[in-house]
Each structure stands twice: as C-alpha cells, then as structure tokens.
C-alpha cells in the first residue's frame, strides 16, 4: 500500500493493517522533522514538502514492486506526508513484513534509500524569519543508492 497524505498517522494502526500470523518480522523506517540546521545558527520551525503526486505514486509503486520481487516480503507499506510539518513530526514511514527478519530489514533499507533519490518530493526548511529555504540533495544519499543498483540488477 502506498499513501501520500497531508495528515499524520499512528504507528500502531498502520502495523495492524499488515499484521498477519504468516509473518514473524516487521521492519520499520520512520523519518521525522529534525531541527538539524539549528547548529548552523538558523532556526527552523518546520518543513514544507512539495510533491508531484501523480509521478511520485508511480515511482513509489516501482520501488515497492522491486522490493516485493527481490525479497520474500508479504507486504510493503509506504506512507509519505506532504505540505507543512512541524519539528518532530513524522514525514515518512516504510513497513516491510516477512517470515524471516533478513528480508524485511534489507528491503526496508532499500525502499528508504531509493525513495530519497528517485521519488518526486522536495523539502524546504521553514525558517523563523518566514523564509522558505530549499534543502539540497545529499551526496551521501546519491552514493548509497549505487550499492543497491548492483544488488538489484
């Protein structure tokens, strides 16, 4: 299941959707709004997430299908929020479920690493002075995805 939504979500409820006694293992990755650039002497009060929804759904679907094919997963849930989010709020949740833990753990990492590089979302920092500042793509994220391309192909 893939959801791009404005409102927040509850981890227990999302888990319940996937919960089945066929599975023994669930891996979650949860990304939240971090007060990162405080250290750069800027105060952020939140972020804004822009999205090309139509494209993002097809890109997430592609990533999810690769994961389902490559690993023995029974499910792969991806939720990504858009719009204005405050510090500490949830941005993204991946849950993968499988019989054995190695599948769900690896697949979960693959999905978040791919999402960071291949899906049409853009993050802006909302500064205290009212400005919006574009968040640049991280070099590390671009490098990390190369590892997966070798594994997947």
């Amino acid at each position, binding site marked *: 299941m893939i959801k791009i939504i404005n409102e927040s979500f509850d981890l227990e409820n999302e888990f319940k959707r996937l919960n089945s006694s066929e599975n023994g293992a669930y891996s979650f990755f949860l990304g939240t709004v971090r007060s990162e650039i405080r250290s750069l002497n800027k105060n952020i009060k939140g972020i804004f997430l822009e999205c*090309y929804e139509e494209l993002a759904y097809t890109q997430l679907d592609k990533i999810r299908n690769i994961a389902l094919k490559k690993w023995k997963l029974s499910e792969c849930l991806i939720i990504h929020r858009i719009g204005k989010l405050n510090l500490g709020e949830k941005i993204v949740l991946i849950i993968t479920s499988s019989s054995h833990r190695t599948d769900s753990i690896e697949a979960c990492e693959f999905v978040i690493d791919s999402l960071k590089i291949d899906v049409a979302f*853009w993050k802006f920092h909302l500064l205290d002075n009212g400005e919006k500042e*574009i968040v640049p*793509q991280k070099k590390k994220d671009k490098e990390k995805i190369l590892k997966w391309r070798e594994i997947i192909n």
Partner: protein
Amino acid sequence: MNITLKYFSWIRVKLKKSHDFIELNQTTSFKKLKSNLISKDPIFQEIFSDKSVKYFLNLNELEDENKILNNGDVLAFLPPVTGG
C-alpha cells in the same frame, strides 16, 4: 497543439508559477521547445544549463533531446529530489 509544463522546487520558485500551458503551431522536438522557451524568458537558460535537472514527459523520464512532443503532453521539470 497544447502542452502542459510543470515546474517544481527551485524552478517553480524562480519562475513564480507551478505550471504553464503552451500552444505550438507545429510538431516540435524537446530541443526546439527549449530554444523557444529560452527566447521568451532567459531564466530558462539557467534551468536548461543545470545538468542536475531531470525532465519527465507524461511521467517517464525524457532522455532524448530529439523526442517529438504531442498534443496533450505533460512535461515536468524536476530538480534533484529530497523527500524521505
């Protein structure tokens, strides 16, 4: 024929709009469209010279400059993504 352009992230901010509807008199390649846009607004020079920008035509990445555009096409301008 009509084509929709969609702008995201810094391109949207720079152009101060999220999309354009453009009319073309004849079939045009992506390459020709680029020159056309640059001649109307020099900001497009900056956009097209940024190699990190990707172009998606009807939700598929456009990699061939000579691709011919058709009526109803949606062409999106995507700076490097930063979700998650």
